[in-house]
């Protein structure tokens, strides 16, 4: 009995793609890349070769049916890929099947032997391991005999297999959800089908990639968002591929405020995500500022992404609370990144933030505010962004502090919270409390995973030294719902309540 071996995968080197495909493309097979115009087919086909050269030293053949090699060289230059350099090094070779002849006539039966011979020649010439063909639609226009072309494609796919190369073929689709390809090529080279989409959603475009099938091989199901950025090309944003295996640490770090540390039973966990929610002006930016500047360990570095205020405003605010951001940046302990949320899409934003985190290697990351990014993408994009960012930060064992602005001044929750609250380890609420005709501020720790915490709603004030957390609000109910009502103290006596510090561990009682 012969033993059949499982289908091997060839790592593509495309960021995130090898995770969702559980190892890459099926080796020595042809995979169909189907997509509408502008869905990124050509980029992905070219990137398959580019990463082969850059990461694995595997030469490739690019067969172009539509654009001339010169056009492709030029287009890929916008991603900073120097195709002509690779050509000079015999790592990349073009087979030019673009329509250059004008006076073509069909007069009898034909096949694509000449084409196949050219591809085989090119593969041999550079000892190619990868072949990309872009895009099949053009050949159907040129040779008006679909049956012959389909049969020939099947023959080409099997010839490629015999050459031992792994190939991708791109094909057009007419609609995002419908027939796989315009010319039904999937019926012929359909063992492996990947679909690229560029779907308009709430007036924004969202790129996704889906592995429709890998015959006989495992892959993740569903659509994965991706973005295209210079130098890197296509970058996938894996969601389910991110394993939930973050180590949980028992190490605590200071929140930047001693009293808040006490409320959190000794500070935040080092690899936790904390969400600070509050209306505008309740002190979220102050909390962020203290988190990035106060009680910072000698080895710690803080990274602050600010999407609501300018650098000048932030630095001025900080100095108003007695914190010198400029000095900290000069010492390399802090990096402040200020940008308008609208500058880029969420997908690209995520990749950029990850890159900055990778380069700066912070121990703390603050985002002020996360809700400012809400309006940039669709709900789905935003949710994916939050999931991906939080899991990345936790994975790096970084403490993350995100702020979320609630739409109403009194109480209320925001969309951000709906998406992020289950992903965060701790939630801190900042609320306005109207009492005796004046606005006061309250803070409470709503949740803290894996730890005891103070359950009281405490009053706090803000002055030149920063935030001062004081005593719990007594005889007020309904603060969180935004309708504080003062009641007679006697009505509030809980039956077993004797010590107001009962919830705090003994050594931290206030």
């Amino acid at each position, binding site marked *: 009995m012969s033993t059949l071996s499982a289908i091997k995968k060839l790592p593509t080197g495309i960021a995130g793609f090898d995770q969702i495909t559980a190892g890459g493309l099926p080796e020595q097979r042809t995979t169909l890349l189907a997509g509408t115009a502008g869905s990124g087919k050509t980029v992905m086909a070219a990137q398959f070769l580019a990463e082969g050269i850059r990461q694995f030293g595997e030469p490739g053949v690019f067969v172009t049916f539509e654009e001339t090699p010169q056009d492709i060289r030029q287009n890929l230059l916008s991603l900073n890929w120097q195709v002509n350099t690779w050509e000079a090094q015999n790592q990349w070779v073009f*087979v*030019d*099947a673009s329509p*250059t*002849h004008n*006076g*073509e*006539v*069909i*007069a*009898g*039966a*034909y*096949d*694509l*032997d*000449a*084409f196949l*011979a*050219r591809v*085989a*020649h*090119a593969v041999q010439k550079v000892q190619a391991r990868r072949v990309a063909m872009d895009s099949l639609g053009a*050949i159907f226009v*040129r*040779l008006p005999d679909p049956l012959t072309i389909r049969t020939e494609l099947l023959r080409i796919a099997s010839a490629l297999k015999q050459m031992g190369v792994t190939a991708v073929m791109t094909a057009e689709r007419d609609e995002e959800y419908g027939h796989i390809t315009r010319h039904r090529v999937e019926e012929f080279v359909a063992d492996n089908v990947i679909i690229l989409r560029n779907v308009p959603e709430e007036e924004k475009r969202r790129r996704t990639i889906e592995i429709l099938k890998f015959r006989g091989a495992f892959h993740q199901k569903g659509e994965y968002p991706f973005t295209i950025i210079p130098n890197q090309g296509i970058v996938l944003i894996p969601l389910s591929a991110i394993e939930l295996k973050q180590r949980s640490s028992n190490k605590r770090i200071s929140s930047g405020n001693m009293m808040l540390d006490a409320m959190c039973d000794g500070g935040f966990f080092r690899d936790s995500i904390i969400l600070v929610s509050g209306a505008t002006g309740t002190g979220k930016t102050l909390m962020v500022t203290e988190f990035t500047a106060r009680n910072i360990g000698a080895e710690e570095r803080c990274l602050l992404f600010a999407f609501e205020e300018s650098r000048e405003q932030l630095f001025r605010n900080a100095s108003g609370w007695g914190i010198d951001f400029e000095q900290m940046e000069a010492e390399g302990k802090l990096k402040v990144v200020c940008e308008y949320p609208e500058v880029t899409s969420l997908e690209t934003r995520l990749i950029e933030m990850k890159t900055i985190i990778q380069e700066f290697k912070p121990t703390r990351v603050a985002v002020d505010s996360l809700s400012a990014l809400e309006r940039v993408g669709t709900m789905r994009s935003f949710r994916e962004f939050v999931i991906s960012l939080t899991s990345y930060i936790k994975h790096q064992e970084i403490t993350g502090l995100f702020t979320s602005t609630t739409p109403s001044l009194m109480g209320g929750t925001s969309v951000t919270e709906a998406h992020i609250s289950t992903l965060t380890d701790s939630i801190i609420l900042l609320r306005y409390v109207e009492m005796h005709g004046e606005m006061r501020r309250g803070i409470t720790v709503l949740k803290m995973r894996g730890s005891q915490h103070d359950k009281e709603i405490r009053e706090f004030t803000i002055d030149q030294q920063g935030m001062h957390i004081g005593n719990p609000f007594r005889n007020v109910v309904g603060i969180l719902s935004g309708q504080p009502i003062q009641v007679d103290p006697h009505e509030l006596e809980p039956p077993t309540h004797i010590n107001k510090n009962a919830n705090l561990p003994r050594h931290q009682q206030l």
Partner: protein
Amino acid sequence: MSSYVFKLYIAGTTPNSQAAVANLQHICQEHLGTAYELTIIDVLQHPQLAEEAKILATPTLVKESPVPIRWIIGDLSEKRAVLAALGLPFRTTSEK
């Protein structure tokens, strides 16, 4: 008298290739006598030549001269189409 220059790209000895050679020779004898030059290129032996000439399908007949250059794809069994592409008059057997 104009002189015809042909290049015929074929793939080994496939039926299409053999038919194309025979059909072309027949047409030339009938219409051009000896006033033509024909080079037969086997793409399996010389893929580089097929690459340079950007030949996709086989057989492909290229009429390089007289201008305009024409590419005729197929085994040349559709005589009327071949003659039209070559700029030669189509004559029925009875006229001959």
